[in-house]
């Protein structure tokens, strides 16, 4: 069926027993599977890679920088010289979108990582140890979630002031605390598994059980959480910047570009809004597709690919 079922290395040499029978190195095999079973996920992965690449090498791709003003070439439509046109100050939109990608990458990864760490910590503490600690943490989370996100964001920005790291901390906290519920649920259900009791009956300590039996079970939801949050953080950052609460100009945040410049010149120079809009849409779509594919493939319970499974089911019922 797949690589793992092929016959074992014929005879194990006593000196160095054959450890893996896989023919391809793991990441390559994984990528091959991704392309075969989840083509849309592979497209998503490509978009994510492109985003990362653009973010990292922004200075090489657009060496003139995001803030180079050229008053003569104001509001130029897309052309060979300015691929994506220019804005009201004559700044190259291409350069700004490219540098905006860097900003998005930094904010997205930092805030999402922070949020996942917070979610995992709170969720595992709450779910695994339960009792009073669970009660205490959950009431705090309840209290936090009573406030609409936007209100919390506005208050936090008002207190901390606008800026990149402030946005990272605020979004990390916001998504982290809300996400802890999902992790807690996953931990609670993982805790019920017979193999957790079995591990206890073997004398495994709490740390060991958490690490070996609970965490792998929580990994699948964590990865899904991570990828969906990645997209959500990018959207939230853009939203905040759109409202003027995010990263202040002249930083090339996609949301900011949509708002200040995009809205004002919507009719004279629609590319000002369309280009960052497309960038946002494509990136969010790509991350989501990649996230879905990862979830389906990383969960050992879904090994073999749900696509193939569905095909088998369909064949069995004669559809």
């Amino acid at each position: 069926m797949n690589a793992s079922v092929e016959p074992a290395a014929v005879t194990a040499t006593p000196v160095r027993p054959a450890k893996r029978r896989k023919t391809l190195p793991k990441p390559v095999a994984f990528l091959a599977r991704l392309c075969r079973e989840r083509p849309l996920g592979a497209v998503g992965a490509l978009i994510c890679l492109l985003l990362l690449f653009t973010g990292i090498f922004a200075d090489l791709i657009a060496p003139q920088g995001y803030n180079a003003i050229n008053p003569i070439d104001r509001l130029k439509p897309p052309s060979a010289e300015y691929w994506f046109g220019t804005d009201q100050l004559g700044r190259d939109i291409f350069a700004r979108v490219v540098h905006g990608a860097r900003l998005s990458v930094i904010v997205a990864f930092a805030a999402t990582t922070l949020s996942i760490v917070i979610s995992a910590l709170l969720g595992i503490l709450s779910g695994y140890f339960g009792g009073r600690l669970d009660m205490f943490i959950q009431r705090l989370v309840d209290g936090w979630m009573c406030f609409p996100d936007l209100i919390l964001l506005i208050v936090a920005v008002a207190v901390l002031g606008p800026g990149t790291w402030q946005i990272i901390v605020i979004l990390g906290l916001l998504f982290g605390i809300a996400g802890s519920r999902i992790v807690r649920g996953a931990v609670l259900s993982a805790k019920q598994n017979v193999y957790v009791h079995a591990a206890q009956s073997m004398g495994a300590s709490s740390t060991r059980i958490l690490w070996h039996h609970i965490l792998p079970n929580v990994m699948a939801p964590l990865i899904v959480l991570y990828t969906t949050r990645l997209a959500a953080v990018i959207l939230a950052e853009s939203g905040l910047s759109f409202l003027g609460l995010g990263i202040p100009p002249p930083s090339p945040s996609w949301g900011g570009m949509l708002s200040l410049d995009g809205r004002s010149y919507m009719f004279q120079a629609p590319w000002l809004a369309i280009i960052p809009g497309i960038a946002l849409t494509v990136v969010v779509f790509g991350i989501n597709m990649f996230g879905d594919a990862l979830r389906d493939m990383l969960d050992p319970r879904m090994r073999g690919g749900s696509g193939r499974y569905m095909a088998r089911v369909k064949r069995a019922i004669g559809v």
Partner: protein
Amino acid sequence: MNMKAQDVTRRTLLDVQDLHTVFEKDGNEVHAVNQVSFDVKEGEILAIVGESGSGKSITAMSLLRLIPSPPGRIVGGRVLFNGEDLLDLDDEKIRRLRGRDIAMIFQEPMTSLNPSLRIGRQLAEPLRVHGSVPKEKVRERCLELLRQVRLGDPEKRLDAYPHELSGGMRQRVMIAMGLACLPKLLIADEPTTALDVTVQAQILELLRDLVRAHNSSMMLITHDLGVVARYADRINVMYAGRIVERGTAEEIFHHPKHPYTLGLMESMPRLDQAPGSRLTPIPGQPPDLSDPPPGCPFHPRCRFAEARCRSERPPLEQITDNHWKACWVDTDAKR
């Protein structure tokens, strides 16, 4: 049968005295295990028999203090293992004892293995936890264990995930995990319930042979009297959280005295039965343990019940050298 140990003078390995475990449910106390006493001798296979909800599994879990708490609580009794009371040990000491001195095999091979870890890693867990084997020897020992439980192609199985194995194969892995640290006592909680009949026999024979080979003892928890008859030395019959009859396997099978045991025997198909005759079920349901009937807990379902049974609970009394029962009625005379 010829392998059965007849020697009753062997040393006692586990001595359970008046074990009492309650669960709190909606403010009520459910006495899941009620004043249960029994012992396990060295090298013996002891069976605990009873229907679902009779407290067999809770008894086993209580021994290792694995009762989820809350809502469960062990409220009384002593569990002497090699003379040491397990209920008095601190958490760290009991943890070190689990899996090393007393190991447990669970009833659901399909769910007792972590689906996201390779077999090799799970099998190594008890070895790593207790450090019984130096790290570089762990893999070797795992292979040896898989060979002992007669799992074909052990090299390949170590790298497999649980879903790649059948139920019987997984149960073999579970047994290998149970035996990894050569425990003195193995608790097998319905080890074959989820398996095909043909595989059941293989697994039980394997368990018996391995336990005998290591000179360990085994507590076999089951509701299957057929299993008990073939593999156990002595039998405890549990009903509603109490032991109602105890004796050697021969005694219980050939001369059952308690009406509940009689009922169990009659509800089981036998080869010497007249063809076409019906099985006799035990009428009614096991009692609600949060509100048990007064007197003998079995009296509402008992065809021999007398006035005394409804008011006074019979104690577990010795009737012959190797036979105890908790019943007021002389069932032999009434039958």
